[in-house]
């Protein structure tokens, strides 16, 4: 009876979080330790921001989740990652996409010699539900990104940065994802375009129920659209909390939002954030 109750409870909590990363360590080339115990969770239907400076380990974290690390000679040496109840490390990137976890890589990575429409169609590679369903989703992507419809026949390599970012997100959408790992969507884009893209992210989250884990350097925008945020520094989570709370936090303001409160402050006086110990559930 008791066991049964515990089991139901576990199932319930599994239903609430779509992604849980438990204390992972990532090593590149067998020697370079990049992540030193990162833990985070993404609730189903949430937008979670992963913030931090260059080289903090944001991209590595995302790639660990999508299991694309091995292509760069990286490996998860400790900890575990669960997506929707499955152990990620046991699945190939192909399997993961099929189960609804897809990454939009930093720098867009569109297929330059394919047309925009062909790019979008490659996103449906893992689907088995037939031509008509894929066509319908193509229409859906064009509704979210009308600009892509105009450029559908252009070679992706010749489109603008914003169009390529839209193409990359649209391509991910074509796989019918439950969660999109979005890496630096704002990179190299005009502020207005950044807002436009984040606005669409919010809509996708609202209407299609897609969860997002987004890595961003643009803390300001990311915290505006996310519900929860983690701040990563040299491979460790140093701070996390509701997006709102993070926006109010003096130190975050000082170092990531660039709006310090009382004049110039010295680093010496800044509270040192210790990694909170997280234990495997």
């Amino acid at each position, binding site marked *: 009876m008791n066991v049964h109750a515990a089991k139901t409870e576990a199932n319930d909590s599994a239903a609430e979080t779509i992604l849980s990363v438990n204390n992972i360590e990532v090593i590149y080339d067998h020697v370079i330790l990049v992540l030193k115990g990162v833990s985070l969770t993404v609730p189903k239907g949430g937008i979670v921001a992963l913030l931090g400076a260059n080289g903090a380990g944001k991209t590595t974290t995302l790639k660990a989740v999508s299991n694309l690390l091995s292509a760069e000679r990286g490996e998860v040496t400790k900890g575990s990652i669960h997506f929707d109840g499955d152990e990620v490390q046991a699945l190939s990137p192909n399997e993961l996409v099929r189960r609804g976890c897809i990454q939009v890589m930093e720098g867009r*990575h569109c*297929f330059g*010699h394919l047309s925009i429409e062909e790019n979008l169609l490659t996103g449906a*590679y893992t689907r088995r539900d037939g031509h008509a369903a894929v066509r319908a989703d193509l229409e859906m992507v064009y509704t979210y990104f009308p600009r892509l419809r105009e450029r559908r026949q252009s070679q992706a390599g010749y489109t603008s940065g914003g169009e390529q970012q839209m193409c990359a997100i649209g*391509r991910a959408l074509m796989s019918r994802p439950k969660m999109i790992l979005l890496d630096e969507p704002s990179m190299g884009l005009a502020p207005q375009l950044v807002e436009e893209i984040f606005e669409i992210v919010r809509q996708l989250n609202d209407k299609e129920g897609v969860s997002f884990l987004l890595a961003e350097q643009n803390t300001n925008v990311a915290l505006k659209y996310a519900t929860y945020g983690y701040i990563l520094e040299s491979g460790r989570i140093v701070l996390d909390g509701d997006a709102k709370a993070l926006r109010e936090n003096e130190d975050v303001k000082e170092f990531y939002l660039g709006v310090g409160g009382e004049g110039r402050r010295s680093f010496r006086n800044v509270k040192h954030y210790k990694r909170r110990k997280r234990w495997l559930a």
Partner: protein
Amino acid sequence: MLYDVLIDPFVQMVAVPDFFLQVIWEGFVSGVLYALIALGFVLIYKSSRIFNFAQGIMVVFSALTLVGLHSMGIPAIAAVPLTLLVMYLLAMSVERVVLRPLVNQPDIILFMATIGITLFLIGFGELVFGGENKVMITEQLGIPTGAFELEPFGGFVLIEQKDVTAVTMAILLVVGLLLFLDRTKMGRAIRALGDDHQAALSVGISLSTIWVLVWFIAGVIALVTGIVWGARAGVSFALEVIAYKALPVLMLGGLESVSGAIVGGIAIGILEKIFEIYWGQPFLGGNTETWFPFIFALLVLLFRPQGLFGERIIERI
């Protein structure tokens, strides 16, 4: 002397146009075959950045398998699909045994691995089918062997029917392949993989599936080349040499361009023949076809390092 070298050959071309046509036709036929082999290289290179040294031996191996199966008493009609099956198994084992364990290794290591595949196929082919020269089962496959004559400009041009068959098969194969690459989901995935490896992985394109497919296509190309070239020159390990003719074609056409391989192949075929007949034989003692394409490709590379049709690198600034 200068007149003999620089002017006289052209005078001859104009003076005896039917012979000139004959030369161009023969060059065209071998050119089409070079193009086919180059296409095999291009496909594998595009999808995996591997320069597949084994493409030439795959031609020999597929032809040997076909002839060997036939000599075991299997009718030609059944031997062809069986050979295709063998090529598929080969593609699968190459992926499983060679490529998958070596993924992410430097290009040169994969290149060395394809040399290994070459040596293995030579040994394995000899072991199973014997090393002696064989005759392609041209008639059993229904390839006509006659010839017909055309009479342009009052002269005559002799066209062998098996050459016509060769060209037709090559064209069908190329058109089919281009349609496949352009229209189907798998074709799109192959091109996507050629463009951006990482991104292809991220959208869930499975490398193993594509690699098996691409090596199998290269095997099919090898079989077609083996059949038509074997019909002209017999089936022996010396056939492998024609695969090296694909190298200048690739230099000309660029390693990544399908159309480059086709145009480059035909251009090399025709040019080497013309050079051989009008310059090679009178002035250089003949047999220039073995080296002319390489010199020609070198000269082109001096002026266009990406080859004549090398894929334009799209770069945003």
